[in-house]
């Protein structure tokens, strides 16, 4: 009896071991991949409801997820040193593409964001989302940390140039995400706190000139609307009022899947893209929101652990920048939909409809997995 039992236990533990070895070989990090899968599958349910029960949109999103997961698996196979080696080239390429957008870009609704290669259209700004943290981590890891003033100055130029190019497309949301990922790398490099604080002060001081010279009218309107949505109920304030109404009316339990009146009766604009959290909140209630927060918390926490444990300064700066950038996008989305931040076009990671953003995000997670599954340096040195 006991023999049998121990044998069964032995077999299962052996199988388990084999599976873990397989994951290891494939460079898959369970603490990241499981919540990511949960998010994308759960997100499909929300999307189906938010899209007005559109089968077409559902299957398109499933395809997006499949493509993005494949990209993740491929990215995860790279060695960190390889990533570091290609960093400057990817950055140069991405910058060139952004410049190309200025001259050859195509677009719609007054924004010029796309490059068309005939058979495929893509946004170079999405490439930059990946290239920026890579390049900054590469640049800052060339010298000993913390970086000296010259390195920092050049790093800022590397951040500002692509962000500026994206901002003028105009695409405030992506520009902010890209800039954040670069700045996060600089932060990770150990830039002195006095630089950080003086940058913050500078940023605050630049609000006034930015308001006058940089921000477009529609962007100003969004900020003004944030403070008083009722001032323009049917115009710019509509989105905020309707999304807050959707979130609030969800209550604790939610109105039930596909039962949210705000979402189903078209009161909520962009319910399937940037404002999808409002649909989730209305139909699944605060319970659903709590669960979503928990999944994101696991992803962020795991990201930080990977960063902490990473074997090289390059890896830590890269990982830290990726996690910070992910976090920033998440906060901006959750904040704008709930009326805390101005409306800038930032999707809810892994849940909002759309393929491009999901692919660039999965590349980021692929790189995180590459970092997390890298063999410890100590062992390599032995």
């Amino acid at each position, binding site marked *: 009896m006991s023999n049998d039992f121990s044998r069964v236990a032995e077999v299962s533990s052996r199988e388990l071991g084999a599976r873990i070895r397989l994951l290891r070989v494939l460079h898959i990090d369970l603490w990241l991949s499981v919540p990511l899968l949960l998010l994308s599958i759960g997100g499909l349910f929300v999307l189906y409801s938010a899209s007005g029960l559109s089968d077409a949109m559902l299957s398109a999103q499933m395809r997006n997820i499949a493509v993005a997961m494949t990209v993740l698996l491929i990215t995860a196979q790279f060695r960190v040193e390889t990533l570091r080696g290609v960093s400057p080239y990817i950055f140069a390429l991405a910058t060139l593409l952004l410049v190309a957008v200025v001259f050859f870009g195509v677009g719609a609704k007054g924004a010029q964001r796309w490059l068309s290669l005939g058979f495929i259209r893509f946004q170079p700004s999405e490439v930059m989302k990946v290239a920026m943290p890579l390049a900054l981590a590469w640049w800052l890891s060339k010298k000993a*940390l913390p970086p000296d003033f010259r390195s920092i100055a050049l790093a800022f130029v590397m951040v500002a140039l692509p962000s500026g190019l994206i901002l003028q497309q105009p695409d405030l949301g992506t520009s902010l995400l890209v800039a954040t990922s670069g700045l996060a790398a600089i932060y990770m490099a*150990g830039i002195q706190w006095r630089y950080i604080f003086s940058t913050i002060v500078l940023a605050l001081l630049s609000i006034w000139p930015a308001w006058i010279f940089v921000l477009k009218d529609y962007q100003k309107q969004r900020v003004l609307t944030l403070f008083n949505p009722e001032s323009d109920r049917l115009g710019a304030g509509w989105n905020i009022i309707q999304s*807050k*109404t959707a979130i609030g*009316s969800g209550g604790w339990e939610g109105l039930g899947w596909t039962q949210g009146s*705000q979402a189903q*009766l078209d009161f909520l604009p962009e319910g399937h893209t940037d404002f999808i959290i409002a649909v989730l909140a209305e139909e699944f209630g605060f319970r659903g929101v709590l669960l979503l927060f928990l999944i*994101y918390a696991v992803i962020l926490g795991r990201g930080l652990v990977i960063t902490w444990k990473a074997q090289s300064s390059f890896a830590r700066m890269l990982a830290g920048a990726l996690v910070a950038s992910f976090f920033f996008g998440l906060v901006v989305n959750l*904040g704008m939909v709930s009326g805390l931040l101005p409306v800038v076009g930032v999707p809810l990671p892994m849940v909002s409809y759309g393929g491009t953003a999901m692919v660039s995000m999965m590349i980021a997670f692929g790189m995180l997995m590459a970092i997390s599954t890298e063999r410890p340096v100590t062992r390599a040195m032995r």
Partner: protein
Amino acid sequence: MARQLNQMQDWARETRITQGRVTVLAAMMILVMLGLLYRYFSLQVIQTEEYRAQSDRNRIAVRTVAPTRGVIVDRSGNFLAVNQPSFTLAITPERAGDLDSVLEALSDLLGLTGIDIELFTEARKRRRPMSPVPLKYRLTDKELAVLAVNKHELPGVSVLSELTRHYPEGDLLGHALGYVGRIGIDDIDESEKEAYRGISHIGKVGLEAYYEDVLKGGLGVSRVETNARGVELDVIDRIEPVPGAELTLHLDVELQRVAASAMGNMRGAVVAMDPKNGGVLSAVSNPRYDPNKFVNGISFSDYAELRDSRDAPLLNRVIQGQYPPASTIKPMLGLAGLNRDLITIDTAIPDPGYYQLPGDPRRYRDWILRVRGTGHAEEMNLRDSIAQSCDVYFYELANRFGIDALAESLDAFGIGSLTGVDLPSEKRGILPSSEWKRRVIGSSWYGGETLIVGIGQGYMLATPMQLAVATTALATRGNAFKPSFVAAVDGMPVQPEPLLSVPAATEYWDEVSAGMVDTVSSVRGTAFGMRSGLTYSVAGKTGTAQVVGIAQDATYDEEALSEYQRNHGWFIAYAPVENPEIVVAVLTENSGGGSTAYPVARAMLDYWMSRDE
């Protein structure tokens, strides 16, 4: 080795730096995520009720359901005011895009008038967002076809099917019924706005205005679920509208037709009343207008024509035309004289054809003087004076009265007071007295003026409706009711309201009545001409009022002046004398005299006395 150690030291230091940064980042993330979580908690758990209410307000639209307006029928159930299905062009401004260009396009297609645009603009201010605003009513088949063809070039334009007021008798009853019109900015005040949501028309004049509250009905409410574009998805619940009440009139549309046709194109007014309850059996004011023209906005030129015409077709002469009552007041004064013992039945007054006040050389002429060159007779009693309309007798009587007692006597018959008929904007006429003259003219009364008032001239003015009431009092021997067009509201009879009561001895009533009967049946009676072929008994009194025309617009025009300066003719009558069933007051403007008025009364009495009931 030392280099390797150095590298190891660098590595350790860098690790320390970056890991320190991770710690700070982690702390920041925890704080921010907790803050965001609290935001969602606050919206979803603390403020749920508020946002759920907001969501319901979004989702549930309260739509008003307009009631159908009450119809108006005559005493036999003939429809006088009905609601007809019709097609209305409407625009939903939110969906029109460039509203001005859509209006312009519609103008080109259908020829919109300034009035249409103006009323449209006003209606826009009263409606809910995302609801259609009416622009043009009663689309013709041709217009519907034009719209159907050009539909896709006209965003936000829709054709609604609705009920529109229609008056089948056209101009026959224009003044009495009045009309409804599109609600203008001045028609309702703030407090009534809610009650008129979804209602496009309101009674503007006539019975339609007087009985607006009864005819309108109560709004229904339907709560519907709508999406963000205002499209109705589902009816949640519905309170049915309360239809407006049906008005049954005393009016007899056939009698009205007889009266109108007897009037022909003479200017003037006719009232027929049931002496037993004050019910108005017929009311004609000539010239007439077609109320249907007003329902959906009359064109400015059409309106200007009606408004500015010297013949004043918009004036309802029955209650707004004020004329000297002339000799029609003689029976009333006679009765009052008997009552006050100023005269007896046998009092005889010499009639040389004129009258003089003691110590006054002025001769007050009797009308007969112009005709025969003498008086009516050497001596005249009351009965003959009524029948022959002897002025001298009533000069003397008026002199015996004095102005204030005379005014008091006529006041008892309702002269100078509103009758309280159920129509808006009634005029009260003038019953002059010494006090009145001091107040209005600012001078004291002269004895000669009393004589003039004694034959119903001078300052005195009365409306045909007032004379119909006074005649009722004569017919019923002292009791008149408040005149009323409406006999029943939704089948519930309206109780007659006593208006005035004149007490007098039977023999006095007999005498006055005999004088009025003689007016028609005696050879010397002033209405003897209407006697031939009478199959029932009639009491009547003629009147000839000297005036200038009543048109407001008094440009001096010599050609027209002679016509508008001619005398008005009056005739009041009741029949049958023994048990009066009908009272008639007829006024014909600038017709020369009473002889033009009594044929109208005769035609009406003939119809009324011969009809099968």
